[in-house]
Every structure is written in C-alpha cells, then in structure tokens.
C-alpha cells in the first residue's frame, strides 16, 4: 500500500476538487430531499430513535420509594422523600396494607449525566427513558424537575423498537 496517490499534472487535483463541490451544489439544489443533510430545526424536527436517552419519566403510581435509584446514581442527583401510609384492605377482613407514598422525587438535570443506571435498577418499572430533548432552561435552578414534571414526561414514552430477527 502506498501513501502516495499517483502523480498527476499540476492543477488537476484542484480541478477535481472544484468538480466535487459543484456537483454537490447542483445535487443539493436539484434534489434537496435526497442530498440535504440538515433540516430547518425549529420548523422541521427530526424524530429521535425510540431508545434515545432524552429525559427520564416517572410513573408515580409504580414507585415504591425503595431508594435504589437514588443510591445507585453516580452523580447523586436524585432526591427522594416518602412516608408510609396504611391502606384499607382490598377484601373485607383482609390485612391492613402498608404502602410507601412519594412526597418528593426530584431529578437535577444540571447534574445528571444520562447514564441510565436509575432506569436500569428500578425494580418496579417506575422510571422510563423518553427521547424528548427540548427542555433547556435559562436558569440552572429550573433544571431540577419535580415529580409532577417527571410524571408529565410519561406521555412521551415510546414503544420499544422491534428487534432484529
């Protein structure tokens, strides 16, 4: 293998380069659908893949305040508070059940590094990834999403993609 392309007439390489740019220009002008690589972002949006790690959604009903996610989080960016409550028995005469209620579930997206460990360790399917990405803020403090905001993301959780074979 040689690292030298064949020697040619001086100036030929320049002309070849000019040919590449002008072909691209005409291709882009004539067939924008096929050759345009970018989109007009706020007007046109690309759909992210279903698995994209955009933002974490919380299903409050499923959460049992087990604290696993907060303990496994490498950045310590999940803050959970909860208390226990007794619930009436489901059948008359049954046992009184104790259930943990969520008081606070905050994720500080200013700290989060989107590793997904919390979603992975959650044993009760309370946390989900959604590919939403438009939640930038002008103030750092607003990056702290409380449990209601996290619950709102639940509507955007996509179906998992079909698998290869």
């Amino acid at each position, binding site marked *: 293998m040689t690292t030298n392309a064949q020697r040619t007439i001086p100036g030929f390489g*320049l002309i070849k380069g000019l040919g590449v740019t002008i072909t*691209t220009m005409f*291709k*882009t002008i004539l067939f924008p659908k096929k050759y*345009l690589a*970018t989109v007009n972002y706020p007007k046109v949006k690309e759909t992210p893949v279903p698995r994209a790690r955009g933002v974490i959604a919380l299903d409050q009903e499923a959460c049992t305040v087990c604290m696993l996610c907060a303990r496994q989080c490498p950045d310590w960016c999940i803050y959970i508070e909860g208390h226990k409550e007794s619930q009436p028995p489901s059948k008359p005469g049954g046992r009184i059940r104790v259930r943990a209620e969520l008081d606070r579930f905050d994720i500080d997206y200013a700290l989060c590094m989107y590793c997904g460990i919390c979603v992975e360790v959650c044993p009760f399917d309370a946390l989900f990834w959604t590919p939403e990405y438009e939640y930038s803020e002008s103030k750092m403090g607003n990056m702290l999403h409380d449990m209601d905001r996290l619950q709102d993301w639940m509507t955007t959780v996509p179906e998992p993609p079909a698998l290869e074979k």
Partner: protein
Amino acid sequence: MTQFITDMFSNFWVSLGGKLLLVALMVPLIGMLLGFAEMKLSAKMQSRVGPYFAGGRWGWAQLIADGVKFFQKEDLIPEDADRPVFKAAPILVLVGTLALFVVIPFGPGLVFQDLSVGIFYALAIASIGTIGVLMAGWSSANKYSLMGGLRAAGQLIAYELPLVLAVVGSVIMAGTMSMSGIVEAQISAGFPFVLVQFVGFGIFMVAALAELSRIPFDMPIAESELVMGYVTEYSGFRFLFFFLAEYANMFTMSAIAATLFLGGYWLPFVPESTLEFAGPLILIGKVFLLTFTMIWFRWTFPRFREDQLQTLAWKVLIPLALANIAITATLKVVL
C-alpha cells in the same frame, strides 16, 4: 420635466451628490447581496440548508438582520489599542473600496468619472485597503492581529506586481489606460481580450484573490491559525465595515477583471444601441460569474502557507506575467 432633471444633473454639485449617494448605496447593497450569495451557495456546496429563517422565504433578510445586529453591538476598543489608528482603519478600508467604483464603466458613458489613467488609478487605490489592514493589525494591540497585518503587507508586496503586470498585456492591446477605452477597444476588435490574454487573465484572478485575501490566500485572516487575523479585536459596526469592504472589493475586482479581459459591458451579438440599458446588466452578469468562481474556490481549497504564497508570486506569476508582456508586445509590433 425631463429637461429639468437633465439640467439639475448637469450642475456639478448636484451630480456629484447624486453619484456619491449612488456609490454609498451600492456598496452595502452589493456587500449584502454577495454576502448572502456566499452563505447560500456555500450551504449548497456542503449539502446544508443555509440561512432560511430571517425574512421568511429563503432567509433573504439574513444579512439585513446581521447588519442590525452589528449596529446593536458594543463597540469594543482594547485598552492598549492605538485608538485613533484603530478607529481610522476600517474607514480607510471602506474608502479604498468606494473609490474603486469611480472608474468602472457600467455602459457607454455610464461611468462616474472616466479617467485617462483609469486602470492605473484603480490598481493604486486598491492597495489603500491593505494600508487600512496593516493599520488595523498594528493598532489592535494583539499579537494575532499584528501577524495578520504583517502577512497582509507581505502579501500586498508580493501580489501588487503580478497584478499590475498582468494588466499590462490588455493595456498594450488596447493602447489606452482608460477603462472605457479598453472596453471600446474590445468592441472594435470584436472579441474580448481574454481569448488572447488568457495568461494575463489567470494571473490577474490569482493575484486578485490574494489581494482580496480570500481562500486560498486568506493568511491575513486565517481563522484556524490567527483566530481572525487583523479583525480579531473589531466588533460591531467597525467589523461590519471590514465585512462590507470584503464583499464590495470582490465586486470591484471582478468588475475590473471583467472590464479588462471579458469585454466589460459589451457582449458579442448584442446590438450596440441597447448597451445603454443592457450594459450594466451584462457587466453585473459577468461580475457575478467571476464572484461565483471566487466563492467556489473559497469553499473548495485549503489555504497556502505564507512562504508558499511568496514562492508562487515571485517564482511563477511574475516571470509568467513578464513573458506574457514580452510576447504581447512583440506580437503587437509584428502584426
């Protein structure tokens, strides 16, 4: 009514004022037009969309929005800068550009001032801009600016010579240095001089690119090396001056090349009687063809190194230009 207008424009001061106004309007207009063309064309060459937001369709108002933005920006002057020089530099650059418009013939008789040494004047005034660049580089109190300014000066010395020598061929063929005269010579000869003076034309375009410090000769700016070269410290409307001057300069240099080599406002097979109106359009068409080439080059080539540029100028272009002159002169005498 028409009589009144003719009378009014025959008054020296009124016509001077009118011409000044026209030039003053033309420079920003051309600057914006070419700037926008560059944005859009480069986008298409790189399979991008390009500006599209401002003004709705195609983003036609992008450059107007940019201009407004520049005027809103704070006018920063570095603390250690040489203030008067720093402020004067962009004005000088723009003045050099404005003064060039004076001698370009847009049609038969459609010229602001037909000087008998038109081309000489044009080439002399074109280098004033470089002095402005050197001033900008020196006064910014920034090492990158200084290096950019010095590179611009070195480039000026290296490229003024081939530029002038390349023109000489056309001047010999036309037998006059008046820009209108050269166009008329091409009309009477019946062919644009580029057919004979292709070497001169090539050298002129290469030297013009260097003079304009556009890629592949944009070492004075060289944003990957010198941050932004001599304009590093400029902001707001002073930066806008440099920006407009760059594009207006592209226009004037292309106009000179079109006039000298491509027949100016004349096109073969176009009846001479219509040149009065068609002339400016023909010239602008040719200019746009040349500026398109410059834009095309810019988005295709990398940049030279300063010493490679000097080698190219002194060892290739100047000998070529001299040989061209010698051959042209000999043929002129023989034929």
